[in-house]
């Protein structure tokens, strides 16, 4: 590794999830970064615990995040892909929402609110979801975080995920990158 290769630290936590219909929630997340970013330390993927908050309150996930990248170029800046799942009254795991949020490019602490969405499926699927549960899920999860087409995907809004991230770049200014 180059002695003064720029590095990027992303430290923070997935605070919680709010405004979902399901009583207990958990979340899967993964940092998706381009080929210019090489992971040096930390866990880029994970699954939080399943929280059962008191009625009407935010589900606290409190999941620590601490990743360290070596940076070759600034395109392909990391983004966080989020899948929120919930457990319904019968103990079945159901999809609650998908979301994607870009890691901020400025140094400092940031509080991010990620609005999530979920596919609604055809009329028939909506009908069976209403009576039997089992909301439709995406087959290819790359859709969540990629900028490729989402044409003809019908979705409905779901709740919000609150994330607190601190970004600390190293040696970026030596290469003329201001962040």
């Amino acid at each position: 590794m180059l002695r003064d290769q720029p590095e990027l630290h992303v430290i923070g936590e997935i605070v919680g999830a709010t405004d979902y219909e399901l009583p207990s929630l958990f979340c899967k997340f993964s940092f998706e970064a381009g080929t210019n970013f090489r992971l040096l330390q930390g866990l880029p993927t994970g699954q939080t615990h399943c929280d059962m908050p008191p009625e009407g309150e935010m589900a606290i996930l409190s999941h620590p995040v601490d990743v360290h990248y070596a940076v070759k170029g600034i395109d392909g800046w990391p983004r966080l892909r989020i899948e929120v799942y919930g457990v319904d009254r019968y103990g079945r795991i159901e999809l609650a929402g998908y979301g994607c949020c870009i890691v901020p490019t400025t140094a400092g602490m940031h509080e991010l609110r990620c609005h999530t969405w979920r596919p609604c499926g055809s009329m028939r699927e909506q009908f069976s979801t209403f009576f039997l549960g089992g909301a439709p899920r995406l087959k290819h999860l790359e859709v969540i975080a990629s900028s490729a087409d989402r044409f003809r995907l019908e979705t409905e809004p779901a709740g919000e995920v609150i994330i607190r991230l601190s970004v600390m770049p190293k040696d970026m200014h030596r290469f003329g990158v201001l962040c």
Partner: protein
Amino acid sequence: MVTGQIESGRYEGLDSLYCRYTFSFGEDWRVVRGVEEGITQMSTARGTAADAGRLCVWNFPIDVTFKATGVHGWPQVVLSIYGSDFAGRSDMIIGYGAVHLPLTPGRHELFVRTFRPIAASLLGRFQSWLMGKRPEFRDTHFPSKGEGRDVTRVQSFGCVKIVVDVTLQGMEELGYAVPPPVRPGVRLETAAMG
């Protein structure tokens, strides 16, 4: 360097509580000076004029200096709140919580929402309610770690307020972009915790 205090906790319906804190940090980090863990006094909750609800005030000072060779593994405060339950049995776990110390210098108010693990089955939950043996984490540092959380089921309840002042030294020489300190008075005070 970090100085500050564990100010108070808000747990509706609970009376006397104490808080245990410890710092969790990566391999590159070590404590240069100060105490890295401690237990506060037992505080009785009482409603104050400024706040609508009941507050346990600990006012417990923290003062630690860390040294590190890399930013990865930035220290976290891990809190565990203990108190007595509805039947008066003492030393019951009320909640765990963890939060990273702020990466920007200046004064920060941190609100840590806490949670406690619950038994996986309904029968187990009933048993622990009856026997007064609540599930606890074997490793105190567990709330600050990312692994193995997918199998835990928790119930969130309550909130702790920590006020810390963070000072960083020698970061800019190593090439880290440190944002300017947060000036007090710029941030709006949150009216109510949680």
